[in-house]
């Protein structure tokens, strides 16, 4: 899993009007929460944050938040939710979830298909039923993506989740017998 650093600052203003004024100054309101502890209101630079979020788009990433004036030098978080303007795609609000790097958690990891199945060369049609797989493990043990070689798939053949080779210390939560790619 990739790791990125993001700078942030504490936010002292709350509510709709104050948040709108923040956005006019190219700042994005954000919140950081974790199980049990109180939520922390944050603000980030909108342009820099957009670039960093774009770099990790569609991937699982552990974000290291460096908050100005925080007692902890670094906080490891996941991006839990991104609210954006539906027309302009500009950032409206970000939710961060603080995690413990030693505790296992559930992640949805994208599947990356490589090669062209031989069944497709013979006139078959490739059907990708799943684009991601559910894995459980410590955040740093979770792979960025799972590569699946589909070159050997003939017409009428399929691959199940059981056929996927996973790294150690990672557990699969998706149904093992379920076919996820087939050539018809």
């Amino acid at each position, binding site marked *: 899993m990739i790791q990125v650093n993001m700078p942030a600052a504490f936010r002292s203003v709350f509510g709709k009007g104050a948040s709108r004024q923040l956005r006019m100054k190219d700042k994005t309101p954000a919140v950081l929460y974790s199980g049990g502890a109180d939520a922390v209101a944050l603000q980030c630079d909108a342009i820099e944050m957009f670039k960093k979020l*774009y770099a990790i788009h*569609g991937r699982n990433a552990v974000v290291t938040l460096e908050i100005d004036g925080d007692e902890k030098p670094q906080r490891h978080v996941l991006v839990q939710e991104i609210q954006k303007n*539906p027309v302009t795609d500009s950032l409206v609000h970000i939710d961060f979830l603080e995690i413990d790097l030693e505790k296992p958690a559930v992640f949805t990891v994208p599947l990356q298909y490589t090669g062209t199945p031989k069944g497709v060369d013979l006139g078959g049609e490739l059907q990708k039923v799943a684009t991601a797989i559910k894995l459980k493990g410590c955040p740093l043990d979770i792979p960025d993506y799972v590569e699946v070689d589909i070159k050997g798939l003939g017409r009428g053949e399929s691959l199940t989740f059981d056929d996927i080779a996973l790294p150690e210390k990672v557990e699969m939560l998706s149904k093992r017998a379920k076919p996820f790619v087939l050539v018809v």
Partner: protein
Amino acid sequence: MLSPRKVKHRKQFKGRMRGVANRGSDINFGDYALKAVECGRMSSAHIESARVAINRKIKRGGKMWIRVFPDKPITKKPAETRMGKGKGSPEYWVAVVKPGKILYELSGVPEELALEALKLAGYKLPFATKVISRNSTI
């Protein structure tokens, strides 16, 4: 063309198109999509003609999703009719589209072809649209 099978009320008020589409504004199924950037009414004929434009361009293969459904009846008075005598009869069906709404999604076709097909579909519609891809935004 698309139309509801059964409705509770045959005629509806005109309504207003205010605000942006907070639902149905993300790519959920395909890899490429056509997004409205203005509000407007998309009739079942518009939906069909844009669908045909996409299918003619991509020829075969790929999968398309239509994310709008015309569920609003539009009434019209017959030609050369004096005013009054009640509301006209339902003439056609429209989908009310707000800025940000995803209209069509495509997958399983090369990027260049998908973008070109969606651009052609956008020309068929009565409001401004833009073509987006899953990788083009956060």
